[in-house]
């Protein structure tokens, strides 16, 4: 037992160290790239920021000049970037150029929205896709398997925008069960999360089915059956655990694309999330918010990969390299 724990610890520490190094590198790179890309965009940043602040009825030369003076936009580019990096080193993300609110607070608010939406969508997608995939795997090429194939193809083919509108029409307009838009109360997350989840569930069902079929044919599962374990126990103890090793990294990849790909769904359902923040920050040249949002997304990718590594380590029944040697 002691040997196993030691091996587990060094595995975990290795994962954490490697990922922490990655996180710092990614942070600096992403933030600097963001800054450079925004500098290259056409248009005068002071005017864009003024338009974001005051709206199109009030944006004019005076407002833009005032913004330029207030924010020191005349400073050379390298100094603006250096100032930002220095502040970041001290844990300060700065203030939004448009709303003058603290960026950490603002991005935190949108991040929470995206995480809520993403988490609910992921749970729904895994539950729906996993269940369909497992059911389909019970009899490969059977009727149910073919039906699931049909489901996979049709939900992959539906763009989220259209699927979202369909869901609104059915559940909100015709049945009147769920609010079409909104953010804050528990029910309003259902439609946007379902839109994302239904789209994702197809792939989950496909991958689950293939993995489960493959594992069911493997020798250790045959052995478990031979030694007299019931079908349910075999599924839970041997098939699903092994399937998890393949599926968890896959869920990780999907989680990353999910968080980056919620822009359309967020805007359709009026959900306040990072996608919304990013689009506005680009439109208004709100560089600190853009940098922080991109930074958070990059760190999120690193974070999710770390969790995937750790969960994989925990799930994988095969002993790890050094543990076997020692």
């Amino acid at each position, binding site marked *: 037992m002691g040997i196993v724990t030691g091996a587990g610890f060094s595995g975990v520490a290795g994962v954490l160290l490697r990922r922490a190094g990655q996180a710092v590198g990614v942070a600096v790179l992403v933030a600097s790239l963001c800054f450079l890309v925004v500098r290259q965009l056409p*248009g005068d940043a002071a*005017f864009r920021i003024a338009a974001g602040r005051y709206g*199109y009825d009030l944006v004019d030369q005076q407002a833009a000049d005032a913004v330029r003076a207030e924010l020191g936009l005349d400073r050379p580019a390298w100094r603006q970037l250096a100032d930002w990096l220095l502040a970041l080193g001290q844990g300060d993300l700065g203030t939004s150029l448009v709303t*003058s609110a603290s960026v950490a607070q603002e991005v935190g608010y949108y991040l929470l929205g995206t995480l809520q939406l993403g988490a609910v969508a992921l749970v729904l997608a895994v539950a729906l896709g996993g269940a*369909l995939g497992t059911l389909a795997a019970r009899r490969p090429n059977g009727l149910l398997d073919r039906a699931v194939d049909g489901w996979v193809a049709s939900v992959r083919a539906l763009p989220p925008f259209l699927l979202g509108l369909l869901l609104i029409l059915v559940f909100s307009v015709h049945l*009147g069960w769920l*609010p079409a838009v909104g*953010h804050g109360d528990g029910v309003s997350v259902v439609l946007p999360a379902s839109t994302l989840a*239904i789209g994702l569930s197809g792939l989950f069902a496909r991958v689950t089915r293939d993995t489960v079929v493959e594992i069911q044919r493997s020798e250790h599962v045959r052995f478990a059956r031979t030694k007299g374990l019931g079908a349910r126990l075999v599924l839970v103890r041997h098939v699903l655990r092994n399937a998890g090793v393949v599926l968890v990294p896959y869920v990780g990849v999907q989680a990353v694309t999910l968080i980056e790909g919620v822009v359309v769904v967020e805007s359709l359902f*009026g959900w306040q999330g990072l996608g919304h923040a990013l689009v506005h920050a680009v439109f208004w040249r709100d560089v600190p918010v853009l940098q922080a949002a991109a930074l958070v997304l990059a760190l999120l990718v690193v974070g999710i990969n770390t969790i995937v590594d750790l969960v994989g380590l925990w799930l994988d029944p095969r002993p790890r390299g050094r543990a076997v040697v020692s």
Partner: protein
Amino acid sequence: MTRMKRIAVVIATVICGTGCAAPAAERGSGANSHDDVLRVAGPFEVHSVAPAESSGLFTRLEVAETLVSSDLEGDLEPGLSADWTESADGRSWTFELPDGVTFHDDTPVTAEAAVESLQAASAEAASPLSAAPIDAIAADGDAVRIDLDKPYPSLPAVLTHYSTVVLAPGSYDEGRVTQVIGTGPYEIEEVELPARVEVTRFDGFRGDAPAIERISFQAVARAESRALMAISDQADVVFGLEPSGRQRVDESDAATMVSSLQPRSLMMKVNMQDPILEDARVREALSLALDRESMADAVLREEDLAATQLFPPSLSAWNQPDLEPLDHDEEAADALLDEAGWQEGADGVRAKGGDPLQLTLTTYPDRPELPALATAIQAELKEVGVAVDVDVTNSSEIPARHADGTLQLGLLAKHLALVTDPLVTAAETFAEQGSDWGVMGWRNDEVAEAIDDLEEGTDEATAAADRAVIATLAQQELPLIPVAWYRMNAAVSTHVDGFVMDPLERTWHLSQASWAS
């Protein structure tokens, strides 16, 4: 809705997602129940609670009040100040404050508090108050006195603008507004920027108590989503519907459309120093080539919104009923362009000395009809051999390209009465040195004289003559080519009575609405 019901709804959705049939629920029992909260939805997001940056949401929700207010016709009426007087030389104004009135945090409304708010507004470059010739703003007993460098009769009108609201000292933290503590009939209950604001009736309001106790505002960016909310009883008042959404509301029993002609004109700003556009014949040809009625019908779904002149009829003092209306005449346009030396080329685009008659039209998507209108203009001008590139970009590109002189044509939606008195906007629009959202490189001595005259204050007959001079010369020389007028609309639930629409968008007058019995 109970917790169990919510869970049931979630489970039902999941089951339906798997393709199984689910029993139908009774309509109106779940998401659509309104309790006693009036739900308002609109496209406007709020990025900050600072008055100038709030897009006027807090005056629309009647949380904060300006010293002066206006009625539905745009005439001034008392706001927080019941009475104001102008000194004999017109260089000092005194605004009385009511006795015994408190802010929402129960602190008294004092002249000092009002002075602090107004000084903050006058220091804000985006506020119209910063353009007024103010010498000093000071407390004078229980009143606020504003001293001016020169007479400025429009001052009370400027003080109707939402950037000049009076807030309690507790609203400020280190000079910035961090919360909105006003004096209106509603007080803030919760603000979740940028999309949600909830207000509740303020019991200490000095006037009549509103019938509706609570209002929640939700910003919804997509017009499709807003239309669905209106017809499925998920919002009681929905602002800014597109033509297709309006049609859906018209066909439904849940809501009715309310609209009012706004003092806003959709127009093309013309760079008068552009080598092509400095020629009056070219400008007139561009104007003649536009079939405004068809465009208004196709894009705004209302033929009557085709502009016949710059000032819409809702600005009755400025609209000139006798002015020769803008006409559509392709042949005349062709003849003018021929005369100006632009000969038809082989590819259908006119040219002069080898240079094609090509123009860039800059516009922005904040008002959804603008890009559609821009492409319609592109198609109309192609008919007379003018090639137009449409550039849909950020709204700030119009002032930015004005500043660096690269703008040729800009399609914009100009609010002509930002501060109730259209003179303030008109003076800025026709400023001799040019204006970001007005003329570019155009000066006309008669117009300048008329504006000076109006700004200094004159008798009504002379003022009317001055306004006619401005409107007529603008129509003749076309430094701004009017395209269409604008109608603001809202879908109002049949549950709501007494909703009225302010064409100036200053307030939504929800304190006067009530639940239908």
